[in-house]
């Protein structure tokens, strides 16, 4: 494998790192993109992830990791600009369009994604997905929210508690 040596990466080509998903798929990605994750950034600053080693991510499967990296690669240039204060309106609009498309995905992927964003500490991705899930639950009843999020059906005890509270908050169900 021709991955560059770990080091300061100042020799022209962008420094690459390898990430390994829970199902053992290897992803090679620019260090700048992977560094959107606060967790990975520390490892990478320590010189990890280069060469044949790779950084194992036992909590993230390959489908989720490939989504995570798609986000990181798109957002890395703006993040390198320090939140892109000098980005053009066109750039910002393009990122916004990308974000909207990006979360337009199957719910189960969204949940894996938000957990991965949380574990890897990718703030922008976490808030993007959290906003999407918040929008999904905001018009729904407690039972609909449970179903949307794949909760098991409530136990009789939980159901009784829900009913009692729903009675108390009748106005919220008109």
């Amino acid at each position: 494998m021709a991955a560059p040596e770990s080091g300061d990466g100042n020799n022209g080509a962008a420094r690459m790192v390898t990430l390994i998903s829970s199902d053992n798929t290897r992803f090679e990605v620019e260090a700048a993109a992977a560094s959107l994750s606060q967790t990975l950034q520390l490892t990478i600053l320590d010189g990890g992830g280069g060469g044949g080693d790779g950084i194992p991510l036992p909590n993230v499967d390959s489908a989720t990791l490939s989504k995570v990296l798609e986000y990181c690669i798109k957002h890395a240039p703006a993040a390198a600009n320090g939140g892109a204060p000098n980005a053009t309106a066109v750039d910002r609009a393009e990122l916004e369009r990308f974000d909207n498309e990006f979360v337009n995905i199957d719910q189960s992927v969204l949940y894996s994604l938000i957990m991965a964003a949380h574990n890897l500490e990718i703030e922008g991705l976490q808030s993007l997905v959290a906003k999407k899930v918040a929008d999904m639950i905001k018009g729904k009843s407690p039972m609909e929210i449970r179903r949307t999020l794949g909760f098991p059906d409530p136990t009789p005890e939980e159901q009784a508690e829900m009913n009692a509270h729903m009675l108390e908050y009748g106005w919220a169900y008109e």
Partner: protein
Amino acid sequence: MPRRPPPLIDDVVGEILLRVPPDEPAHLVRAALVCKPWRRILFDPAFRRRYRAFHRTPPLLGFLRFEMVHPDLKFVSTAAASPFPAQAHPNFSTPAHPNFSTPAHSRRQWRTLDCRHGRVLLYSFRTRRPGRLLLWDPITGGKQRFPMPDDPSPEIFSAAVLCTADSCNHLDCHGGGPFRVVFAGTDQDYVTWVTEFSSETRAWSALTKVDFRIIASNRVGLAPAFDSFVSLRPSLFTGDAVYFILEKEKAILKYDLDGRGVSVIDTPRVYRKRIILMTAEDGELGFAGLKDCDLHLWSWKPNAKGIPGWMQLRVIKLKSLLSVSESCYSSPQVIGFAEGTDIIFISSNDCIFTLKLKSGQVKKVGRRFNYEAVVPYMSFYAPDLVGVRPSPP
């Protein structure tokens, strides 16, 4: 077969719930009923502080009428599901607000004078002094009465209620805390005066008087007419001052909250219809006026030489915005502004609309009924305030 999603840990649920918008109180209430862990998060005071800080300004939940002739405390909700009964009234008891009932106060006729920082200021012509003013917190049900300023007796007036709690960010003010009420009135001799009530001293301050006859005779060019008077329109609080509209010439009375000084600001005299005070986009004093079907937004700001003057910021064509219904855009009036937001209230022949200035979004929120103006009510609504608390985990 669809994959069962992974369980969401509390931190992640918190991030999601944080982003549920505050303008529909029912959304968080329903979320609170999903399961115990969610309730625990939503009832956690630290979460609620974070939630308020995240959304920054209390959302508009509804409005009351600023109406002198027909007292009516109808609370008109701007949310689809409202925690307040349609006949919100400090005397009414409702299941959601068991604290409301106070028989001693029944039969009184209260009118809405102002609303700010979680409190509604009401007054009554009918009840005897002391206690013609009533401060009411619609969420907690808390209320307290205090007298009107009684000497001289105002013929016509407006008022502003403000929270005065130390270092309060005004995101979660409620009726129990310290407050001041600034009261501006005009007496029979066209002398306008301002006085303020402090909840700490329980007394009104000495009057600060403005005699328009003197101002009018000393000024060249535009000056308020000698018979100007405080308009029956809602006040505005921004910066370190509160503002009141003066009739008949359109001018604005400024009361400096620190120095307690009073000054008068003229407005461009191009509007036949009544204007509404608002904060401009940069937080400075502004007003909205209507010319035909065009809404003009003005800001009072210094020019290049540092001399303050009126600057027209925007013109919004209402005709295209309100075209949802033919009958709705005829004879529009601007009747309110929700402080801290970008929402303006417009009334027309038979409808009341909110208009979000940034997005241009228009929403029909009620039917018109001889509104002088509206007093918008803004507050965060936390699910536990009305008594249901989660059982211990």
